[in-house]
């Protein structure tokens, strides 16, 4: 019997292995990933009057607001670098995490119509979301570089690149993996605990305040430093700023900690997601 089973191209069974990661299957559907990415980008471009201009407007207004509230009124420390550059650096990378996480955490509810009709590895949906969010991030990154370039050339300050700049691709990969990991955990949990949805919006704001987005790690009082030390997002943001602006507090150990944390989150996320994707259609 077991021998016969091998000849079938598709086997449908009640339960499969807990520890099954459908990586091979995801690879087989890579065309679909690219098509979903294209769909997301084109849809954003076509839906609104201003199109991708929004990608510029949102961070610019955010930076203006931060500059006024946290910079001018609260007069918070920015590690000795110009305030607008500091906030722009923070919002650019953080913005990617936020966009990507918010979209992936909606995987099951947002795709219920498709998931109910056709089978494909469900991970395709959050993976393509993370990639399409990268497009928006890319545009904002260009804007940040233009901003940075202006301040470096025309203004008197301490801005300079450091060797950490070479870690940039890894930092982006870390941010996307983290947003994917937490996103799929939340999306898996929201299918069972709908209340969680209400938490996502302010939860992400809380996490932002807990991360060095609008303040540098160096400005955190010693008695609270454990907080940023255990926050896996902190080293990524600090390394990013250290690489591009020359100011930041980060060590390789911090990044390794952060990377390990992300791997564990991603692994738990994949397992949880895989459990839910099998039963999800029965609960909606």
């Amino acid at each position, binding site marked *: 019997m077991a021998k016969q*089973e091998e*000849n*079938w*191209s*598709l*086997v*449908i*069974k*009640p*339960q499969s292995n807990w520890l099954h990661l459908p990586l091979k299957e995801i690879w087989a*559907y890579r*065309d*679909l990933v*690219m*098509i*979903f990415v*294209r*769909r997301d980008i*084109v*849809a954003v471009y*076509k*839906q609104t009057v201003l199109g991708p201009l929004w990608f510029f407007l949102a961070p610019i207004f955010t930076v203006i607001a931060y500059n006024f509230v946290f910079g001018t009124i609260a007069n918070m420390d920015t590690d000795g670098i110009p305030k607008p550059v500091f906030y722009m650096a923070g919002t650019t990378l953080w913005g990617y995490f936020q966009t990507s996480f918010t979209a992936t955490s909606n995987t099951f509810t947002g795709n219920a*119509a*498709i*998931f*109910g*009709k*056709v*089978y*494909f590895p469900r991970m395709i949906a959050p993976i393509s979301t993370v990639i399409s969010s990268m497009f928006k991030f890319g545009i904002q990154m260009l804007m940040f570089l233009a901003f940075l370039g202006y301040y470096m050339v025309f203004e008197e300050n301490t801005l300079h690149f450091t060797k950490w700049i070479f870690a940039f691709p890894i930092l982006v990969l870390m941010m996307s993996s983290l947003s994917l990991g937490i996103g799929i955990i939340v999306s898996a949990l929201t299918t069972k605990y709908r209340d969680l949805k209400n938490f996502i919006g302010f939860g992400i704001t809380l996490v932002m305040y807990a991360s060095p987005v609008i303040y540098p790690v160096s400005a955190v009082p010693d008695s609270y430093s454990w907080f940023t030390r255990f926050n896996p997002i902190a080293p990524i943001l600090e390394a990013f700023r250290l690489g591009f602006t020359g100011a930041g507090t980060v060590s390789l150990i911090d990044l390794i900690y952060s990377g390990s944390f992300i791997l564990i989150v991603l692994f738990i996320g994949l397992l949880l997601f895989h459990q839910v994707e*099998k*039963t999800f*259609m*029965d609960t909606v």
Partner: protein
Amino acid sequence: MSVVKVIGLGKTYLLKGKDKSVLHAVKNATFELNEGESVGIIGRNGAGKSTLLKLLAGVTLPTSGEAFITGSFSSLLEVGTGFHPDLSGRDNIFLNASILGVSKHETSLELANIIAFSGVEKFIDQPIRTYSSGMKLRLAFAIIAHLKTDIIALDEVLAVGDSMFQIKCMERIFEFKKQGRTILFVSHNLSAINKLCERTLVLESGSIVFDGPTDEALKLYADLTNSQSGQVVSKYLTDLEIGGTKSEGTVLFSLKNLPTNAALDLGINIGTSDGISLYHFSNRFINCDITPEDSTAKIEVKFEHQLKPGNYSISIYIGQNEQQLEWLSNAASFLVPAFNPHGFHNPDSIQGPIISNFSISQS
């Protein structure tokens, strides 16, 4: 050679609520499909047809049993899955095809054929939100029509669109059959099943109650739907029995628990499944007084009809003293057995439900 082998497949849903009851949507389904075979699945609403196909599609997992499939397999529960309104027709072809598991390369090879088949060439680079629903449907079906999979399962996906579209779809499915592909066809369209499938499974409350030649399956299904009597939930009506031949019908039922013994006002409607009333019979039209005895009455309705083969819906009105006691909408189905109207082989190509004698001659 069997290409699909289903062994004891079952799906149980836990129903939410205090009593924690379970629903056996599919029970112990066992059957095989042989290569090149066209097999129909019929059954009443809720019999488990869609769930069975969802299990095969992999959209939901079975709670028991196994299914084995060899060769490429498409399970189509819907046409145009994933269509995005802001994308062009062309982009949506790629999107939908890749959701169905077709690679970008294969789609680009078939692209010209798909566009030509869809009949929306002129608008293919326009976003499909500008399309009419008919255009979207044609585009969606054009994609399915060019699938290269060996085994195709269809769940009522063609029960949409106008009659011309339906004919085009059926023609294409017959082509699939000619190409030697294996087809699993779920439909309420009994004449389509009759023409396409040599073998048919009858599902009833989640179980396969029959697996065999289509004509026998249709007979059994007719019996099943006609003996629906016991299942009508009504305070007043019991023992509903319905019989239909190609030109006549009978509806028998008993009334009980009537509030008074005043004269009854009965209405019997025969309509299409989508709610259009075709025949309306009432004792008041023919001045027939029906007065119950001891709050009960036995009713027999006999009528002639000119309906083409298919499944129709019966609704029953019960009134007394100018007041409605009950309106049993879609209480049961009325089945007109398969025959060839006018000796013509294809009742589907006759539009509308009515067949009347006529002559056309050259003068």
